[in-house]
Structures are given as structure tokens and as C-alpha cells.
């Protein structure tokens, strides 16, 4: 068995209002950044998964992302493998 490290990026679906992104975006201009738009706030989830091989670990993370880490009604996700620290 080996340990594989993954990152899951969860973001609100494009059509949905992102109130957190809106709040961040409105806080930037008073600080001098008047050139920013399209701010979206998402989640970054890191996991270390023990599995016989990378493909097995990846498949498990995909399922975790579908069944718990994201809500398919409102969110999209991306899974990527990263080098362990």
C-alpha cells in the first residue's frame, strides 16, 4: 500500500450567486484594487489516501467528492494528485 495525496477544489456552479465572492469583491476597491471582478470563493480540501495504486486512490477520491465533499446541486469539483509534503 502507498499513500497518495490529493487536492479537491470545490466551487459554486457558475450560474449561482456567490455571496462570499460578492463580499470579497466589494471589499477590494476600498483597498485600492478597483480592477477586480469575477471573484468566486470555493473550498480546498486536501486528503492523504492509502491505496494499492494511484488509480484506485483517485477513483475513491472522485467518489468522496461526489458523495460528500461537494453537493452536485450547487457545486462543481476538480480532483488533482499532488506531491506529498
Amino acid at each position: 500500500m502507498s499513500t497518495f495525496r490529493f487536492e479537491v477544489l470545490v466551487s459554486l456552479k457558475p450560474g449561482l450567486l456567490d455571496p462570499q465572492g460578492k463580499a470579497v469583491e466589494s471589499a477590494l476597491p476600498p483597498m485600492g484594487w478597483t480592477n477586480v471582478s469575477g471573484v468566486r470563493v470555493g473550498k480546498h480540501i486536501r486528503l492523504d489516501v492509502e491505496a494499492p495504486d494511484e488509480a484506485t486512490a483517485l477513483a475513491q477520491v472522485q467518489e468522496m467528492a461526489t458523495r460528500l465533499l461537494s453537493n452536485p446541486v450547487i457545486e462543481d469539483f476538480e480532483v488533482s494528485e499532488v506531491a506529498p509534503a
Partner: protein
Amino acid sequence: MTVRTPRVGVITFPGSLDDRDALRAVATMGGEGVPLWHDSRDLLGVDAVVLPGGFSYGDYLRCGAIAARAPLMEELRAFAERGGPVLGICNGFQILCETGLLPGALIRNASLRFICRDVWLRVETSQTAVTRDLAPGETIEIPIKHGEGQWVATPEQLARVEGEGLVVFRYSSHDGVVDDAHNPNGATHGIAGVRNEAGNVVGLMPHPEHAVDPDVGPTGGQPIFASLLESALARTGA
């Protein structure tokens, strides 16, 4: 001949806040409240179940997401599929959406603010376990208190919810006008509560359990709990 008292379970999760109020509302309306614990696998033979409001698991990840995977929720799903009456209130509604027992999801209020006040709801259907004592078009007053109560859905879900009459309550004026001015949280089509196809599972953001005692506020929750108790009795044939 004695009429059996319906037993209504109220599930407590870590971070539930309104479980005691829900138990009290059940008792006030003539039922027996039965405390249930999220980490058990036993619904203790209750006739109906309430998922109360609060901040289960600190609302970590998403509101209701962790609670939706609690051990007792597998039993609840089976109970719901057998036709058992289930009412999810606020966080309980969020949990039911996270389990997929109800369509849609709840996201942060469009105003970004936590809202705590009384609102009016227009009843859209009496074909549910919690609105049998109400008529479509009737309005009831109930408090809301939530930061993440904006109901949203995929375009496919929304079409199904509206097309199949799965909307149970909409935010409205006192006389039943549904518009932006009476929509507290930006919910799609002013939707405050929805049901499943069979009508035995209902979730809503407002708090009927806080609206049964005329000494402390509006009483719009009374017909909801009365309906729930009738549904519980009808199911057991008592």
C-alpha cells in the same frame, strides 16, 4: 375507546438547537415527543420524525452535510420510503436536501445577513403530511432565523418542483402576494418549503415549532404540527 397518542421522534445531532422546542411543540399539540439520538440506529418505533433546526456539526463543509450521513439517517431514509411522515425545519430542511430526500439546496441568504423575524407564508398544497389542515392560498405567520436559507435548485429540479406541485410554502405578504419585497433570503420563486413526490417528507426554513404558543408570538405552526400528528395517527391506523 381510547385514541392513541401519536409518538413523534425528534432527532438531536451535535449542534442541534431547537430539538427541545420541537419536542415541546409536539406535546403542546397533543402528541408525545420522543428524543432520538443521531448516533443510534433505532427510531424507537415512532409514528413521525422531526429534524430540528440548529447548526449540526457546526455547519462544517455545508449546512447539514455531515448530519445527512449520520447513522440514524439510514433508518430515517427507510422510514421515509415506507411513507413515514418526516418534517425538516431549517437545519433539518438543509439535512433532508443533503440526503437527497428533498430536491434543491440551501445557500447563504442573498443579503449576506442572518435574518431573524416573523414572516408570512402562502400554503401551496394541502397534499402533504404537514399541511392537511391547511388550504392552498391560505397564509400563516411563522418566524425565520437563518443565515443560509436561500433555496436553489438545478434547472431540471426547478422545472420538476414547479411542474409537479412540490412547492409547499412560499414567502408572501399577509394576503398571499409572492414578490421580491416579501422574499427575505432571495429563495428561487420565493420557495420556503418543498415536499417529496409522495408528500410524506416536507422541509421548510421557517420555524413552526416556535409558533404554537399564543403567549410568545404567532401561531402559524399550530396547523403544521396538528397535521403532522394526524398524519402520524393515520399511518398507524389508530
